[in-house]
């Protein structure tokens, strides 16, 4: 299995305080579904942000899909995210001024795709996710589950190799969360590498083949456990 994500002695501190991540080494293979778990403040979201190039480590190297993300400038990081990564957030992070279809098409249009073409691609994804009837609606009118599906569609519009999800079901009720979880699992089975940040062990058990535990900014167990083996 090829390595798609590698952290080499990565540390991240904010304002010189206690490090959010402390000399983290890890590897994630292409096609894996990995859950990053840990208590609140353990550095889970920080780790995800570093993978996505949303932030830079204080020290160490972060390599994602062959790109040294930690060394990319702002423009390079933005292009990296646009072309290689799809991101899903706990509170969806949709733009309230744009319709559902415009939200989904946005990353494609930022990449220079023509509006008509981007809309076709957006419509395709919205149909796939059962949101075709909401294409002209505004996010404020949608339920939590619908908004998260819009966010997933947006994350997929540029056909990324890697899907990063930060607490994707954290703002949803249980059944809706299950729907989203199943959706993500389905996407993983279609070939996407999935990195999932969650504090929900059940979610991790169901949709991830491996868990990386963080405690106080460090990987809790260097030889990460294989959940399938544990669960049996």
């Amino acid at each position: 299995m090829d390595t798609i994500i590698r952290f080499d002695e990565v540390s991240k501190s904010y304002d010189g305080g206690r490090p959010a991540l402390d000399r983290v080494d890890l590897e994630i293979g292409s096609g894996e579904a990995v859950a990053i778990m840990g208590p609140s403040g353990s550095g889970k979201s920080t780790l995800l942000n570093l993978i996505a190039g949303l932030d830079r480590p204080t020290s160490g190297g972060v390599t994602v899909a062959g790109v040294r993300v930690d060394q990319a400038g702002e423009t390079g990081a933005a292009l990296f995210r646009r072309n290689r990564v799809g991101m899903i957030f706990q509170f969806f992070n949709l733009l309230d001024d744009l319709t559902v279809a415009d939200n989904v098409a946005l990353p494609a249009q930022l990449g220079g795709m023509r509006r008509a073409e981007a809309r076709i691609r957006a419509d395709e994804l919205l149909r796939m996710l059962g949101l075709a009837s909401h294409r002209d609606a505004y996010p404020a009118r949608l339920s939590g589950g619908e908004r998260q599906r819009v966010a997933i569609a947006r994350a997929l519009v540029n056909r990324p190799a890697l899907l990063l999800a930060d607490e994707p079901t954290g703002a949803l009720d249980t059944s809706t969360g299950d729907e989203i979880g199943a959706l993500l699992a389905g996407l993983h089975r279609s070939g996407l590498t999935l990195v999932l940040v969650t504090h929900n062990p059940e979610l991790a058990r169901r949709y991830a083949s491996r868990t990386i535990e963080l405690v106080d900014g460090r990987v809790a167990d260097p030889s990460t456990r294989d959940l399938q083996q544990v669960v049996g």
Partner: protein
Amino acid sequence: MSGAAILHAVRGGIFRRRLQTGVVAFVVLISTASTVVALALVVNSEAPFDHAFAAQRGAHIVATFAPNVAAARLARTARVTGVTAASGPYGEVRVTGTSEGMHFEPQTLVGRATAAGPVDDLVIQDGHWATQPGQVVLATGDSGSGLGFSLGSTLIIGAGSHRQTLTVVGLANSITGSASGWVVPAEIPLLQAAGGTSASQMLYRFADAGIGAPLQADVARLKAALPRDALAGTMSYYTAKVEQDGNIAPFVPFLLAFGILGIVMSVLIVANVVSGAVVSGYRRIGILKSIGFTPMQVTAAYAAQIALPALLGCLIGVVAGNALATPLLRQNATAYGVGGLAVPIWVDIVVPVGICALAAVAALLPALRASRLSSVQAIAIGRAPQAGRGHAAHRLLGPLPLPRPLTIGLAAPFARPSRTFLTLAAVLLGAMAVTFAVGLSSSLKRLLDGISHQRAEPVRIQLPGDGFDGGPQRIKVGPKHSKAPASNPVGLQVPTARAEREILAAVHAEPATRHVVAEADDSVSVAGMSDQTQVTAFRGAATWTGYDLVSGHWYSGPDEVLVPTGFLKQTGRSVGDTISLAEGREALRVRIVGEIFDTHNRGLNLVTSWATLRTLDPGIVPDQFDVGLRPGSSAAAYVNAISRRLGPDYDVELNSRGPAVVDAMIGLIGTLAALLAAVAALGVLNTVVLNTRERVHDIGIFKAVGMTPRQTTAMAISWVAGIGLLAGIVAVPLGVALHHEILPAMAGSVGLRLPAKYLAVYDTTMLLVLAIAGVLIAVAGALAPAVWAARINTATALRTE
């Protein structure tokens, strides 16, 4: 809840939101400074002569006495009934001579030990007062009483053993124009020995100095106190007042226009900035309320949070405004012909108080509104614009064939209509000021050409003996020939045909010559006018000589004349009427076929053909030759070339630029327009800063899905670029309309009408460029905060609520 908690909230609001605090302080500073400048200029254009006359203790009467009147007797006239102050007696001498090889007409020099005095307090504007013989301080301004030379120039008076050389060491203003220059008292007998005509000067102020009977009575009392024929002549302050009021009048309309624009813009921008700062803090207000702040405490906290930086901005703004106004006022003082102008104290008090009051109201209104909302409502309104606003704009602009960041940015202003409107208004006024200023400057340059004719006839070759009339400097030429005035007992000398042939041969030999025409100047009587009137006649085609027509057409045959507007006003005539001219025994009726723009000889100079003037003066000979050059030719090089051809006996010089007051206006216009454009750009800066703060989370989302820094900058700039474009398009016709309104008012204030070409200065290309002025102002104001928006840390932005 104690006052300490409120203080803590205020301190937190100020120091945690340093950017916003800084923007409020800076915008208030600039608005205060520009309002101080605008108001100072406007106020100082209101009767500056009267103010300066009082400040400089101007002389109501400048009296010249025969040299044989004893000084003690003259000094006693200070006690004549009605005299409130007197200065002198000073030695006075009337001299003529040369400077830089050029003869100057007789000038009055007075011996004074100091510039200060109980009457006619002189204001030194450059250099220093004379401290020893051999030095002279000249009067400033082109009021006609000064020589107009610069520091370091030398004046040579007399010849041989009595020759005196005076070096110009200072330039000073006498509000009454009491002399052309001043020397130390010891210099006076030396100048008399050099051939100057001596007299004594006294300066008086009276209790009742009203023009007409009261002043005449004052003078009569002086005469009565002295021997017969002691009083050689008097000059009243009224002469100087009329002249300087004429200098000042054209400034007033455009200063008023700029002043009003500047004040309105300052009000708009302060209101926009301050109210925006409070509105952007609604979320914080909601949080303060949720932890126990009462509505009154919240209002007080936010009012204080704005008041402190606003107060600081006002105080520094007053200082900055004075610093900026001082050189402008000094320039205006020279142009107005007064000693000095200053920012009135009341302006320094009223402006900051007014701006602070405005800031307070602009802060209180939204703060009061927020304090009445529930905590939840205040937090919900927070930074986010009302839901639903701007959706239609996004739907409309989204399909445009523009990069996505631009279509998103162009639609954004519709989410905050009030802020957008205020920003639009500020940019519109700024662009309008720029449009107005560009047109006004272009018009004034054409007007300057119309006065000086420098562009049409940059070179003049004049026969010696003709004097200055307050217009362009004249140059003497011809092998020592002179045409003496009629009163000259020496008699008339005419230039030889050889001299004329030599001049024309030299001119035609130069490839740069395009036109040449002989010009004669004469004095004629006009029926119905008490004084003689100057006439200029051309021998040959002369439509190129730079006289711009206001109405009618150029003369095409004999017995036709062109007249300036002043002549028509004074005589009550119109184009098409006939007038009677006479010189000696000759008389002629001529028809007025055209009205020209001309200010020489107080706007009474007639222009006609050689044949017409020859009817009145059969012995007419040229006084000068006017030369027009081919485009691209160097006038200075041409003068040198002609001088080499004609030799040292001939003087050939450049036509001078014209009255300095017009240059002063052009400079002032540029400064004021730049100031207003800067104020408008500040308003835009504030808008983009507020937008960035409100949308920081959205910016994080944009960056998270792949918007590059350059795209983010473009989006932020396009938040206001559309506003700038709209403002520019609307501002252009408004600025043109303002120009068409103000320029004729300026001319009308001095009794002039303008040729159409002075107003028709906006061509299509210029209008298109000016329409972009709004965009440029908007981009200039948006650039810094847009770049900052692009640099926001994405992860931090996503965490912002």
